């Protein structure tokens, strides 16, 4: 038992070299997988006493983790779902951070003949009626929430052998879609990162329904005394600050030729 304790303590010391105060950020995989957080988090940590612990999961899990008081601040992209949690009082101070857009990608031969269409809902109807293979995230992520909304708007209950739910991240879902020559709804950032590894091309883009909005929200500290409210506020203030917004606007330009995310917080300030 003595060994056990001393080893645990040693292991603990080993892991906690820094004396900074932890802030738990629950966010979606797309912000981590795109590499954006690798730029934003160090910039934040440099100028504050806080250390960010990023837990990158699907938006559904991020919101649920926050609602249980197991995170301090969330950065997510499922507006309808976010509003439900805000209405329940789980989060406060919801602010827009950035956006990019979703794309409907598919094989070049386009079996459902949706290329050239402008309305996402119409394309979803056509995919269902032609029974063309579709690969869904199926994980209650922001992308999956939007996909379900589009099926609902098209008045289709997607079931059957043509509808595959993989329950994995965006990158894996694109890989499965590429292997199966299927349609996939994807965010642009992940698609750009994977485009040279997969055989899927953008077919529908630009529909206003396909806009992908990211919001930052602070966990309601009144329900949970352990929540780090000051750290949460510091991070959410940072991410909408001109400095962070400039980082977001520039991110990805060198690698992909165009930015992966477009800052939204400044626009809001301009409106005021």
């Amino acid at each position, binding site marked *: 038992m003595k*060994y*056990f304790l001393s*080893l*645990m303590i*040693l*292991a*603990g010391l*080993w*892991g*906690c070299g820094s004396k900074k105060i*932890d802030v*738990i950020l629950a966010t979606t*995989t797309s912000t*981590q*997988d795109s*590499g954006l957080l*690798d730029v934003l*988090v160090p910039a934040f940590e440099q100028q504050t006493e806080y250390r960010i*612990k*990023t*837990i*990158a999961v699907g938006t559904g899990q991020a919101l649920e983790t926050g609602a*249980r*008081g*197991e995170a301090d601040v969330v950065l997510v992209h499922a507006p309808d779902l976010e509003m439900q949690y805000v209405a329940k009082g789980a989060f406060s101070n919801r602010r827009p951070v950035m956006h990019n857009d979703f794309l409907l990608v598919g094989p070049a031969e386009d079996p459902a003949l949706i290329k050239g269409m402008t309305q996402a809902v119409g394309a979803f109807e056509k995919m269902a009626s032609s029974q063309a293979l579709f690969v869904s995230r199926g994980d209650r992520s922001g992308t999956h929430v939007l996909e379900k909304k589009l099926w609902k708007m098209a008045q289709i209950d997607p079931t059957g052998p043509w509808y595959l739910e993989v329950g994995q*991240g*965006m*990158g*894996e879902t694109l890989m499965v879609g590429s292997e199966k020559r299927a349609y996939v709804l994807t965010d642009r950032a992940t698609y750009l*990162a*994977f485009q040279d*590894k997969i055989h899927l091309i953008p077919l529908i883009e630009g529909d206003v329904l396909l806009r992908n909005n990211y919001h930052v929200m602070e966990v309601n500290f009144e329900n*949970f005394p*352990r929540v780090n409210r000051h750290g949460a506020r510091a991070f959410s203030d940072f991410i909408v600050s001109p400095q962070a917004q400039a980082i977001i606007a520039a991110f990805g330009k060198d690698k992909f030729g165009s930015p992966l995310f477009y800052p939204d917080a400044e626009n809001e300030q301009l409106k005021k």
Partner: protein
Amino acid sequence: MDLIWQGIYKAFYLLITGDPEVLHITQLSLCVSGSATLIALLLGIPAGVVLALSQFPGRNILISVINTGMGLPPVVVGLLVTVMLWRNSLLGFFELLYTPVAMVLAQVIIAFPIVAGLTIAALQALNPNLKLQLVGLGASRFQMALCLIREARLTLLAAVMAGFGGVISEVGAVLMVGGNIKGQTRVLTTATVLETRMGNFDVAIALSVLLLLLTFIVNFVLTRIQQREHVAWPLLK
């Protein structure tokens, strides 16, 4: 196929150039899984000895539980430990979630049944007359246990390897309780998952190569010890 060669090339490139992030990830993997194995040994060998040598009601049930635990799914352990360590939960007071300590804890739970189960098997495989002889020579229970462990040490080294192999390779538990935080709780397996998710397949393969290399080196050292101890069958005269 090209990708695999690229990955192997990249692995050696990262090793030779001493990429600080990769070194840290490798070091953390070794530290977390090494301490988890060590703790599992300190707990598992005594537990295995007691279960193998004593008789008490419920012993068979306990051994069955341990044998079942040898195949404990890491994700199940990860989920249970996460829920226990949530800051609004039972052990939340310690604020251990998303730290290396939590990862060690989860891996101890995975490795303990492997070590205990193999210890039981090792001791029961010994010649039962040895136990009788030790009793006859007037050995105390503790002396007897020590002597039997010495006799079974070659098989017990296999338990060390199985325990270490089980935890260094698992991803389900460390991903959940550690959170795969860059510079804090990212280990070789979780980094591989992340790089795959990001589409950096060459880096993912490079990390896999490093993981295999690390496991091989550790097992090679342990095997050397084991085989040095191993006395070949004396030639029949």
